């Protein structure tokens, strides 16, 4: 039971409804516009921040299959909600938490602001509120709060809502804001297994339309955001150097070794202590004249 989002970038128009819906759902402030048209096209802002949890990237990619050899590709980027998140494994106070149904959530009441999560995330997702005196970490939470209490309002424009309207609203409410806002169906929300099956079905059905890869299926141990694309993923700003191993799996062995190491260190140090005390005693006995022997044999450490 793990929820996920599948984005079929071939269906994305780059309308940025998801980006706007995300701002609204999370009540985030505006950013100052800095267009870098040569590098980023009409992407704005340039990167995620404490004010932006979702950004749509623009890519004009050379593709011989496309008309005139150029293809526009847009991708909605936000937290990948890894199956084994580096940020959660980094957090010393469980402020970041992987919910059993998929979302990686954050609780600012626990957070120390150490920013280890910002360093650890392979996707560069968590960001800090640098201009705040109490800087929280901010990131997409897959609208987990919406998913939890997805009750539709009983009233619509002051009148009792008809059942079909209620059902429609409840359905929209039970999705992350970005998915609910998507006008083309490029974004789909559902069970991760079902979405993976759907992604592979689309690739199999239209091999001419997609590269044969579902990004997020295995990257960094698998993520809850899954992507389909017409062009190789490294051409549209996705990291393809992460491998299939989850990030925390690198540190778990070292951290699991700590408690046995404490016990081993204690035993080893005690052993060294008694051995070296014995050696000091023997040495003192040999070195000292017979008369002084008993006194010299007193272990050296007993004298402060």
């Amino acid at each position, binding site marked *: 039971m793990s929820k996920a989002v599948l984005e079929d970038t071939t269906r994305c128009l780059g309308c940025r409804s998801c980006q706007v819906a995300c701002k609204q759902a999370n009540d985030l402030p505006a950013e100052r516009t800095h267009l870098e048209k040569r590098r980023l096209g009409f992407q704005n802002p340039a990167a995620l921040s404490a004010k932006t949890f979702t950004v749509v990237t623009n890519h004009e990619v050379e593709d011989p299959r496309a008309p005139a050899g150029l293809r526009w590709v847009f991708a909605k980027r936000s937290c990948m909600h890894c199956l084994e998140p580096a940020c959660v494994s980094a957090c010393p106070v469980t402020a970041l938490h992987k919910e059993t149904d998929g979302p990686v959530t954050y609780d600012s009441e626990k957070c120390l602001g150490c920013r280890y999560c910002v360093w650890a995330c392979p996707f560069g997702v968590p960001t800090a509120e640098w201009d705040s005196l109490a*800087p929280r970490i901010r990131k997409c939470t897959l609208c987990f709060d919406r998913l939890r209490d997805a009750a539709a309002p009983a009233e619509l424009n002051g009148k009792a809502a008809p059942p079909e309207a209620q059902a429609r609203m409840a359905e929209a409410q039970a999705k992350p804001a970005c998915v609910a806002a998507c006008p083309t169906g490029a974004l789909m929300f559902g069970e991760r297994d079902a979405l993976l099956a759907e992604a592979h079905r689309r690739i199999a059905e239209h091999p001419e339309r997609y590269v044969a890869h579902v990004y997020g299926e295995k990257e960094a141990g698998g993520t809850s955001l899954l992507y389909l694309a017409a062009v190789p993923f490294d051409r549209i700003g996705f990291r393809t150097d992460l491998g299939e191993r989850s990030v925390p799996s690198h540190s778990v062995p070292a951290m699991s070794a700590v408690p046995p190491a404490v016990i081993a260190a204690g035993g080893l140090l005690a052993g060294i202590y008694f051995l070296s005390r014995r050696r000091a005693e023997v040495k003192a006995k040999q070195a000292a004249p017979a008369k002084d022997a008993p006194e010299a044999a007193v272990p050296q*450490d007993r004298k402060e």
Partner: protein
Amino acid sequence: MHHEPVQAKLFTKWSIPLLALMLAGAAAFVARFAFGLGATTNLSNNYPWGLWIVFDLIWIALAGGAFVTAGIVYVFHGEKYHVLARPAVWMGLLSYSFVVVTLLADLGLPWHFWQLAVQMPEHSAMYEVSWCVGLYVTVLALEFAPTVFERFGWNRLRDIWRTWSPVYTVAALGLFTFLMSHQIWMAAVATVLFAVIAWLTRPSADRTGVPVILIIAAVTFSTMHQSSLGSLFLLMPDKLHPLWWSPFLSILFFLSAIASGIALVMLMDMTVSRVFRRPWNGEVLAGMGRILLGALVVYYAARIADVAARGQLAALSGRPGALFLIEVLGGGLVPVLLLSTDALRRKKAPLISAALLAMLGVMFHRVNVVLLGMRLPGTMPGGPTETYYPSLVEWLVSLSLVAAAIFFFGLGAKLLPILPRLEPTAERAAGASDAATRG
């Protein structure tokens, strides 16, 4: 071993720049909280950690001198090095305390620190380091306590300390094992083991001497957090260059902390001799030089073997390759050569240079791990990242804490019985033979 405060003026011409720097640092510290991290530092989402973390990592590695020295003297029975024990512990206590102050500045929400006591994450290296450093500071304070009791003649407190500090230490080790394992039986094994050790190594019946369990706890806690500071970077295989990232980072951090700790204690003793016009501890320093030689050989052998085993030695190139070579040759090979013979270790210049280079080599390693060896992909969706250079506030906070450590180390040496009592010169020659009757 008798200790006494150094007879010297509390404030000298050196105090003025140190105090000025401390004052500026205090102002910077206040500014950091008044205006926030973004306004006062050059930290960003690309560089969420900067100078302060580098300083902490370096400082903890150097302050490893406290546990190494205590271990040599009390666990390995290196009586010759007893003269270094109290100053090393005092240096360690100051260092760790000021590292915690740096962390307070660095944390965005430091007032939530108590959450560390109520949350139990599974495998967070940061959680391990926080608890381990916290408990180690208390052990350092307990190690240092008799110096204070002795100065003020608080014999009653000293007796309480002798009885109860082992109990506290065993409990701390048991608690730590539980927090890291979430296993009652594991904690029980640790508690019983350390309780037995504490009992077997208890101070003699005449109630003199240090409870050895304190030292064993100090070495154990140090082993754990020194290595876990390396484990922090295990989560960054995608960012840290393979010349530095290794699945054995924890072991490399631990081994390098031993080397740099010894080097720092040597430099500390050399500085003390010079500043307080005390005799050069040639015999002790030569012995420490030999131990440093061993520590360097072990660390750099492990370092090079690790890089070679991952096939990175053959692929050495570019700026990372150059940084690696500076580290290994300047911090490893040169000091090893300088310390290679007994005759060299008895000469001042090679010994000072070797200790200095050994320390700088490990410092450089930490800088490389946090900053120079990091390849940052940038905040999603990635792209070129701006370069990071620490701000004035960052420099002032860090440098002022170093100044504070130096100032308080001197002040402590002048007020408390930290340094060994100097015998009159004629007697000192005969000192060795009458060592057995002293104490």
